[in-house]
């Protein structure tokens, strides 16, 4: 069953009067419960694709459909609610709030969802336990290693139980051993929770080892698609 679909997805940036097409006519489909890797050189439009899928940005042309819902039909608040409940995002630089503990960072999305304080605590502790950080709940991001920080970020992305997880270079700031652990964790989420995970990555080898399919982008267009298993 197709869960994520893009139709003629195009994003054009106007930089100093020069039109730069970051994405052009991208048609893609991903089934529910897949673990797909998106690869390609810098500037190929990988991050742009992820931002459009995550509802952080709007396309110049074309549309994104997640679980049968077209994002083009949503207004600003509708898009915010989509980000709140339907999708979780993980970034290369973790984007944790430095002054909040691991548990508070995980609670952050629940705050906007109007979840009560006790319930937030419980859920944050359970999520941190699931990513293997049960002993680090009270630590600030600065007191955690890179891999641990990314685990906190993943727990945060899962807080409102979305069905789609988008990871933009999640291993870009990590050493190879930690990178492997993180990709393993994502792969496990797909296996155990039926989550759909799309991961932008530079690391071919890791992608080949864990992902079910690999989409490669070049100059804003789909250059190839490979189903591995």
């Amino acid at each position, binding site marked *: 069953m197709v869960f994520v679909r893009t139709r003629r997805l195009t994003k054009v940036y106007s930089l100093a009067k020069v039109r730069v097409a970051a994405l052009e006519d991208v048609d893609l489909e991903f089934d529910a419960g897949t673990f797909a890797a998106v690869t390609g050189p810098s500037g190929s439009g990988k991050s742009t694709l992820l*931002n459009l899928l*995550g509802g*952080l*940005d709007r396309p110049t042309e074309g549309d994104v459909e997640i679980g049968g819902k077209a994002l083009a039909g949503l207004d*600003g*608040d509708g898009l*915010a*609610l*989509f*980000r*709140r*409940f339907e999708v979780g*995002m993980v*970034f*290369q*630089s973790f*984007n*944790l*709030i430095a*002054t*909040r503990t691991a548990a508070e960072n995980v609670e*952050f*999305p629940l*705050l*906007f*969802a*109007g979840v*009560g*304080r006790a319930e937030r605590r419980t859920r944050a502790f359970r999520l941190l336990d699931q990513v293997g950080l049960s002993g680090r709940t009270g630590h600030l991001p600065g007191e955690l290693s890179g891999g641990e920080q990314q685990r906190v970020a993943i727990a*945060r992305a899962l*807080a*409102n139980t979305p069905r789609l997880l988008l990871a*933009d*270079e999640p291993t*870009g700031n990590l050493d190879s051993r930690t990178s492997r652990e993180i990709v393993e964790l994502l792969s496990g989420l797909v296996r155990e929770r039926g989550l759909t995970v799309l991961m932008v990555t530079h690391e071919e080898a890791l992608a080949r080892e864990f992902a079910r399919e690999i989409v490669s982008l070049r100059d804003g267009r789909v250059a190839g698609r490979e189903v591995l298993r």
Partner: protein
Amino acid sequence: MKVRDGVGLALVNLRKRKLRTVLTTMGVTVGIGALVAMISFGQGMEKNVTASFSALELFNVLTVFPSGPSAFGRDPDEPGPRPEATAGPAKVLDDEAVAAIAGLDGVEAVYPEVNFPALVGLDDREDLQLVQVIPAKVAATKMFQVKWGRPFGSDDEPAVVVGESVLRRLKAGDPAAAVGRTLRISSVTLDLSAFNPADLAAFLSGRKLPVAKEKHEFPIVGVVAQRPFAGPVGLQSDVFLPPGPARSIKRLPFRNVWDLLRMQDGRLGYASLTVRLVSPRDLERVKAAVRDLGFTTFALSDQFAEIRRGFLYLDMVLAAVGMIAIFVASLGIMNTMLMSILERTREIGVMKAVGALDADVRRVFFVESSVIGLAGGLAGYALGWVVSRLINGVVNALLARQGVPAIDYFAFPVWLPLGAVAFSVLVSLLSGVYPATRAARVDPVAALRHD
């Protein structure tokens, strides 16, 4: 997002930047403090003046002046209210007029303004004072506040009541101890027996005036306390005699040449009459009746509307000064909030990425600025109160040396703390509008970009 969580989020954010929050709040505190001090001063002035006017029963007093060219009633070079001149034949304020006015309905007492300059002495000290003649009936009213001793018992009692300031000028010391001592009053009178027509030239050039000094002694029976504000109309001096003994003092029948110019057919009359009414309600009616008799009137209540308007202007000027401080404080809030947005761009990006509505983002910043406003408003009210207490203390201490009794120069009506805090929060919210809008407009893609 729940309101409580929004407030919690804002409080955490403010606590993270303690110093900056405290400094910004101090700006608001000073602004609100200045405003509170200014307004309470304006309120205090108004309250004191109104209160002392009513305490002295000045709203049921009418002053009557002769009409015609003499309408000035008093010396043109003497300060004080100037009633407008009336048309028609000039009328003299004589005893007949006094009787006519006293017979009007609603009039409690009428007494002429009779005063004469005299040399007043106690022991070996002397001072020039205006001696005023006051009927015993009037001396017994609230208008005439005898603090030590008592007012005169009757119009014929040989006694004198003095003001506290006279005693100070005569270095009499404790006013309470002055009661019972003897006051010397020396007046100047014409001595025609000393007038030699052969000396006319010397008289006209002022080298040999046919005058003599006359000395009288009266026991001091009462001392009037000094008032913080100007004395009531009709009581212009600080030495008071009842009419009986006053008649026994020979003196010149006029005080100055203005009095002589006022003269009609050789009749001088009184410079003015003070009419006390039973109730302020009778004022307009009695005023009209007195005007019908051909005299000019002056009532303080006529001035009072103007005085109130004056206070409104005073309040506005004071508030304007306070507003400048508030304006500066609101710039401080705006600056702090904008700076905080720059620092927290990534955090705002995260808020948006995890599903915060624009309204949620705005709310966080609004709560932050209104918390600053609330804290600043409360602290500002406290500061304004403390500062005005201090100023009040200092002013009273300084004035006490001049014998002015201590009063409260500042007033804090109930609406002031509520208004100050509400206003502070309002100003802070307004200062937060632009920063909050900017925060809500942050582009999450740009804010979260890896660099």
